[in-house]
């Protein structure tokens, strides 16, 4: 063995080190602590006392409602966000004059400049009794309740996460070779068919990335359901806040956390397999 590969390996190790340290101390270690806690017992005054019991896991059903809410609303909200984000990204990447693109992309991000809470309060106003329902009543559609329903959570999610979904889709559409669209038209495909047969499949990696991002954030979110769900539509995140901070049942909270992480892993694994199974190799070839 010569010195050169050894040195290059040392350099590699040095470059990887910060990420590795970060990964181990901020991800692996806390996760292991959580796993250990999840087999423990609640100390009489709250918190953790060492033990080895599966009770916390067997008790998960007690928070079943939170799991059901999260697992239905998070995917649904992700899907809705993607559906709203796609035309925006398409417009930005394909239709808009390139010199306006950056400015419009910045505008898409603009809501991030104000506090999240402020934005949710704005929605509480809009969706609350004196907001949209009042206007609907005015034109004759009475008794619509939006705030503190799953609808409010969905609307808030789409609004809040759109700025995260648009950029990855924009990038994949921007990268799309416009000659492929011409080739499709040349071969007799109408614009609509070209969209579904060429544009959409080739933008799928961007949709997948954006969806992943939004889905993961939604799964762990507790602020959105707390404000727009008003405690009636609560997520796993809300259950965790409650368990760790209110009832101080850390071991049970830890078990709920582990379940959440496990569900996320499994979902992401299958989702990636599904999306990349069709497009992964191709994406590698395109880059």
């Amino acid at each position, binding site marked *: 063995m010569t010195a050169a590969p050894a040195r290059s390996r040392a350099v590699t190790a040095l470059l990887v080190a910060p990420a590795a340290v970060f990964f181990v101390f901020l991800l692996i270690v806390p996760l292991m602590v959580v796993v250990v806690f999840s087999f423990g017992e609640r100390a009489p005054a709250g918190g953790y006392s060492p033990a080895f019991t599966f009770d916390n896991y067997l008790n998960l059903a007690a928070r079943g409602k939170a799991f059901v809410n999260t697992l239905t609303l998070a995917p649904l909200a992700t899907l809705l966000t993607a559906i709203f984000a796609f035309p925006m990204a398409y417009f930005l990447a394909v239709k808009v004059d390139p010199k306006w693109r950056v400015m419009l992309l910045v505008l898409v991000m603009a809501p991030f400049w104000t506090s999240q809470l402020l934005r949710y309060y704005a929605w509480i106003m809009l969706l609350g009794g004196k907001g949209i329902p009042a206007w609907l009543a005015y034109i004759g559609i009475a008794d619509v309740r939006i705030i503190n329903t799953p609808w409010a959570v969905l609307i808030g999610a789409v609004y809040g996460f759109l700025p995260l979904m648009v950029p990855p889709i924009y990038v994949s559409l921007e990268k799309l070779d416009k000659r492929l669209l*011409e080739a499709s*038209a*040349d071969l*007799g*495909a109408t614009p609509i068919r070209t969209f579904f047969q060429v544009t959409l499949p080739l933008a799928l990696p961007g949709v997948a990335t954006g969806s992943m991002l939004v889905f993961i954030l939604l799964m762990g979110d507790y602020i959105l359901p707390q404000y727009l769900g008003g405690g009636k539509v609560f997520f796993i995140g809300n259950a965790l806040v409650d368990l760790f901070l209110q009832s101080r049942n850390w071991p049970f909270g830890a078990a709920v956390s582990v379940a959440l992480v496990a569900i996320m892993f499994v979902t992401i694994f299958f989702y990636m397999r599904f999306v990349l199974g069709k497009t992964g190799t191709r994406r590698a070839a395109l880059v």
Partner: protein
Amino acid sequence: MEHPVIEFRNVTKRFGEVAAVVENNLAVKAGEFLSILGPSGCGKTTSLRMMAGFEQPSEGEVFIRGENMTGVPAYKRPVNMVFQHYALFPHLSVSDNVSYGLRQRSPKPSLAELAREVTEALAMVRLDGYESRRSYELSGGQQQRVALARALINRPAVLLLDEPLAALDRKLRREMQIELQNLQRDVGITFLLVTHDQEEALSMSDRVCVMREGRIVQSGSPRELYDKPVSRYVADFVGKSNFFAGPTKDTVISVRPELVEIAANEAVLPEGLSAHYSVKVLNRIFLGENTEYRVANDTLGEFMVLTPRKSERSSGTFEIGDTASTGWRPEAALVLAAT
């Protein structure tokens, strides 16, 4: 008389200030292999794009099979294009790429029918068995063939080829030229090929249109263009030529290098030459079957002489610095417009 398959009627295309195509009346006859030849930027691609329907003329009309197609979108036109960089769909297999056109039809052909057509089309371009490959797994030449199969499977009225061989290396290009020619003969589809490579245009086509700044300056068989160019521009672009001062200010005399006779002295030059010029040999390039000499004469200046290997036995070879005698038959000297 039969309609041309594609016809420009006074087509002009402007991009802002730039006129890419000017008062063009290009006509493609059914069944022919036509090349559009011209330097970069003369409007070749723009012409093809107007035929395919990706661009609309600023003025004039485009007729396809006698039908006015001006303004009709690309997907409704019975022509297909082979793009310079192939533009194969990266997310589809070779087979799905090739069957793409057929799958847009309604009613959609059955799967069995599609499979049969694809097999046939791939066989045509000698890619049997490549159905399930991905386009990025193929070499440039193979991608080229897939692009051809994808277009030909639709049996277009005209196949439009925009510099289809430009990205291939020299040897492969030569092979594909022959293959394209054979393919055109076999399928009997009209081919319209755009190129800036005169050798390609001359060797492959039944007819060549020479373009200059958006206009067609001459069209005819390769032999006609070579033997009877209408202007210095055409003579220069199609093959090599020597140009000498013409009888008037706006004319030049063109003599093809291979029509110049060269010998050690006047006595051994062939009979029937219009004049004899003694020259000094400045340079010699050995080209295999030919040798090219650059020679200089006091009144004519420098010019080129191309001698075939075969003639060297009688006329001998010349070294740099040798003096020799040259001349050409009267019909070899063409008086052409100087533009």
